[in-house]
C-alpha cells in the first residue's frame, strides 16, 4: 500500500507557479528523498503533504487521508520535523518532549527517546541554552515522540557536526527497520545516497527524474570520468578519443565504455612509454547526476 500518493498537484503563489502538476507515489516503509535547488517547489510540496498549505489543483492522499481535511486523526500518525525552530526557549528539553508526548494517543518512552537523539546530558537544560545542532536533535525527538507511521524530515542534519550526522543517519536506518515511511528533503547528496531507497529530483515545479540512488538519471548507464596527467614531452594529438585534442595540465573526459576506453588509452601510453600520472577512474557520483539534471532544466 502507498503511504503517499500525489496526483497532478498544482500550487501557485499569486502569479508564480511553484508546482505545475507533480505526481509521485511513496510506498509504505520506504525512505524517499526529495532533492532540488532552493525555490524548486520542494518545500511547497512537503508542506502540502504535511497539511500546512493548500493546493490549487490535484489530489493528495497521505496514509489514505487528504492532509487538507485529515485533521487530528491524520496528525496523530505523522511526525513532522520542520526546517527550523518552533521551540519555546524557556522550557527544558524533557518538558518539551513530555508535553508533546501528551498530544498523541501512543508515545515513545520519553527518556529513552532523548537518549536516542543524544541529548541525555541536556535533559534538564533550557532550550534557549542549546546549540543549533542540539536544537535540531530535539526537533527530531519531537517528530518521533508520537511513534508516527510516517515521518517528514525537512533537511534533518543541516548544522550537525559529522558525528551527530552519522548518529542521525543510524536513527533513520533504525526507523526504517521498524517499517516507518520517511520522506526526507536534503541538500546533501551523500545523505540521500546513504539513506534513501528512492529519490526524486524536483526543478521548476516538476519532477524531472525519479529512481534509486544507483539508477537516478541513468547513473548506472553513464560512463566513468577518467582523469590523468602526462609529464613526458610527447604529442597528445594522436591520443585515442575522447582524450585527443584535450589541453591543460590535467586531461579529463567522461567515457562511454569504460573498459574499451581504458584499453585504448593505456595501449597508447605503453606504446610511447608514457606514464599516465595520477590516473583515476571514477563512476559518476549522485552529485554529478544531480547537477547535470538541474543544469539540463536550466538550459
Amino acid at each position, binding site marked *: 500500500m502507498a503511504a503517499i500518493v500525489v496526483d497532478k498537484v498544482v500550487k501557485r*503563489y499569486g502569479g*508564480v507557479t*511553484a508546482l505545475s502538476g507533480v505526481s509521485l507515489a511513496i510506498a509504505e516503509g520506504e525512505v524517499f528523498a526529495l532533492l532540488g535547488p*532552493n*525555490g*524548486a*517547489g*520542494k*518545500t*511547497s510540496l512537503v508542506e502540502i503533504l*504535511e*497539511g*500546512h498549505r493548500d493546493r490549487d489543483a490535484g489530489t493528495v492522499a497521505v496514509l489514505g487521508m487528504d492532509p487538507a481535511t485529515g*485533521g*487530528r486523526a491524520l*496528525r*496523530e500518525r*505523522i511526525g*513532522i520535523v*520542520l526546517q*527550523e*525552530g*518552533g*521551540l*519555546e*526557549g*524557556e*522550557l527544558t528539553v524533557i*518538558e518539551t518532549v513530555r*508535553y*508533546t508526548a*501528551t*498530544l*498523541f*494517543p*501512543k508515545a515513545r518512552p520519553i527518556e529513552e527517546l532523548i537518549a536516542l537523539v543524544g541529548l541525555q546530558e541536556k535533559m534538564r537544560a533550557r532550550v534557549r541554552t542549546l546549540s543549533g545542532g542540539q536544537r535540531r536533535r530535539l526537533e527530531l525527538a*519531537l517528530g518521533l515522540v*508520537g511513534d508516527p507511521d510516517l515521518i517528514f524530515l525537512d533537511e534533518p542534519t543541516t548544522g550537525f557536526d559529522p558525528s551527530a550526522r552519522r548518529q542521525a543517519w543510524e536513527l533513520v536506518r533504525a526507523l526504517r527497520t521498524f517499517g516507518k515511511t520517511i520522506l526526507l528533503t536534503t541538500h546533501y547528496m551523500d545523505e540521500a545516497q546513504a539513506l534513501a531507497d528512492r529519490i526524486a529530483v524536483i526543478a521548476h515545479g516538476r519532477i524531472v527524474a525519479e529512481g534509486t540512488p544507483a539508477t537516478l538519471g541513468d547513473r548506472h548507464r553513464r560512463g566513468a570520468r577518467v582523469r590523468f596527467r602526462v609529464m613526458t614531452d610527447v604529442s597528445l594529438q594522436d591520443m585515442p578519443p575522447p582524450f585527443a585534442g584535450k589541453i591543460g595540465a590535467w586531461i579529463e573526459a567522461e567515457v562511454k565504455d569504460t573498459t574499451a576506453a581504458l584499453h585504448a588509452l593505456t595501449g597508447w601510453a605503453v606504446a610511447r612509454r608514457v606514464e599516465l600520472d595520477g590516473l583515476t577512474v571514477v563512476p559518476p557520483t549522485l552529485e554529478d547526476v544531480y547537477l547535470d539534471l538541474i543544469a539540463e532544466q536550466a538550459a
Partner: protein
Amino acid sequence: MKQPSLARLLLGQIGLENRIFRRSPTAAFFSLIFPLLMLLVFATLFGNDRIGPLGVTAAQFYAPALAVYGAVSTSYWNLSIHMVNSRELGVLKRMRGTPLPTWMFLGGRLASSAWIALLAVLIMMVVGVWLYDVTIYVHTLPAAALTFVVGVACFAALGCLVAALSPNSNATPPIASATLLPLGFISEVFIPPSASAPAWLGTVADFFPLKHFARAFSGAFSPTLHGSGFAWSDAGGTYAILPHLAVMAAWGIGGGLLAVRLFRWEPRPETVG
C-alpha cells in the same frame, strides 16, 4: 491506543503557558509588578486625601483602576507580544502539525492569559485592602466579576488582532504600547476624572474600550454609587455596568472577527520555495 481527552489537552496547554509565563520576567513584571509599583507611587503622592470629584481616597480610586491596567497589560500587551514571538519562532506552525486542535491551542493560551489577568487583579485588590484600607463592597462583586470577564475577553480579542496585524516581533511592543498607554491617561486609569479636562478628550476616550473597562470595574468600589451594577442607566448615581459591557462586547466581537480573518500562523515568507 486512547486518544487524549479534550479536557486533558486544554489543561495541559494552560499549564504549559503558565509555566512559560513564570519564566518570562518581562511579562511577569508588566502584568503583576508594574501596576503595584504605580499604586505605591500614587498612594504615596496623594496620601489618603480625597481626590477629584469622586470624593474617594487615592487608593480607593487607584487600586481598581490599576487592577484593570494589570488585566489589560496581560490580556492585550503580553498576549499580542507572546503570540507574535511564537509565530516568528515557528511555534505556531509546529503546533499546527501536531494533533492538538488549533482552537485548543488558542483556547489554552487565552485561558492562561485570563488566569494571569485574574491574579493581577486579585494581587492588586489584596494589597489595596491590606496597605491602604481599600473598601470592598460585597453586593457589587458579581458586577465586578462580570466586568472582568467581558473586559479580558475584549482585550484578548484585540490583542490577537494586534498579533495578526503586526509584521514581526520588533514591531509588536511599540504597537501594543502606543495603543495602550495614551489611552491609559485619558481613560480614568492613571489619572482620575477631572472637571477641568476638555470635553472632547472625554468623547475620544468614550469611543475606546479601556475607559469603559475602568469605569465599570471601578464603580464596584465607589462609596458614592448605589445599586448592584446590573443597570443600563447611571441616572441619579446608580452603578451601571451594562452600557460599558456593550461597548466592550462590540470591540471584542469586531476585533475578534477581524483577527480570525487576518491571523497568520507563519512569519511572512521571505522567499517562495
